[in-house]
């Protein structure tokens, strides 16, 4: 729980405009969902949402047009996520990136042929993953790779929008996205082996 220490904001809005609570309440669902995807851990995600709400409440006077509220809240939430990563020593501003050598997941599956009785090997492989498995695999990625992957491929942002949201050059986002996809593929394969997902499927298809 975030401790509310003092109220610095001013409720200087007209009586016809909703208060912050009323305006923010419809957005709690997607704010939490986005925080979960970006942060991973549920308790930490809730904590980050509270920090974002507190910051937003204190400067709610800046919002003149309520249609702009979602984009404004989103930016505050992402900034709070960045504060969290910095405090954990996992800054999003990290510049070093790993080399991602090695075959694609498509090739790994073709060579290893883990489901010899399957005539749709690649699709059957993906079908072994539940939503919880996907989150677990994403959580294994370094923050600098997971965040662009989530924002572009799960939240539907363009790379230009992500660059703006994270205040990071677009080329850096593109490069992290590229490495993030490769790492995600590798982690899918490792996860499936560690959890015995393929063994279960092999039993079902043979």
């Amino acid at each position, binding site marked *: 729980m975030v401790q509310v220490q003092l109220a610095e904001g001013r409720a200087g809005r007209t009586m016809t405009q909703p208060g912050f609570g009323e305006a923010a309440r419809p957005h709690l669902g*997607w704010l939490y969902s986005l925080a979960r995807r970006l942060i991973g851990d549920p308790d930490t995600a809730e904590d980050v949402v509270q920090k974002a709400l507190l910051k937003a409440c204190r400067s709610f006077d800046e919002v003149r047009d309520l249609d702009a509220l979602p984009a404004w809240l989103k930016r505050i939430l992402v900034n709070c996520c960045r504060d969290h990563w910095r405090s954990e020593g996992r800054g999003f501003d990290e510049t070093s990136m790993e080399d991602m050598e090695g075959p694609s997941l498509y090739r790994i599956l073709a060579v290893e042929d883990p489901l010899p009785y399957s005539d749709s090997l690649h699709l059957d492989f993906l079908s072994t993953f539940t939503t919880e498995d996907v989150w677990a695999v994403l959580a294994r990625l370094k923050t600098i790779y997971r965040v662009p992957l989530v924002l572009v491929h799960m939240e539907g942002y363009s790379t230009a929008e992500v660059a703006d949201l994270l205040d990071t050059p677009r080329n850096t986002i593109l490069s992290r996205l590229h490495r993030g996809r490769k790492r995600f593929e590798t982690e899918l394969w490792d996860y499936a082996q560690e959890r015995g997902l393929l063994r279960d499927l092999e039993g079902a298809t043979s």
Partner: protein
Amino acid sequence: MISCSEAVEQLWEYLEQELDEVRRGQIEEHLAFCRRCCGELEFARELRGFLADAARPRLPSDVEGRLTSFLDEIEGQNVEGVEGE
């Protein structure tokens, strides 16, 4: 003509339409004769859908209750702060 590894490296960017015209043309030229890379492309497309379709985490009712109380608390403090001035 680009190699298979060069083509595979760029397939996601190709699907995202992030490539310039020259590189896009190189990929399409390669895909026109390479069956294996067509398989790679199809799988990359499936993987993109796989990520996009992963359900959003729901807002559990207990978390919703706590966040709503938190909103009431911080808004109450803000109003008190103004009224007390």
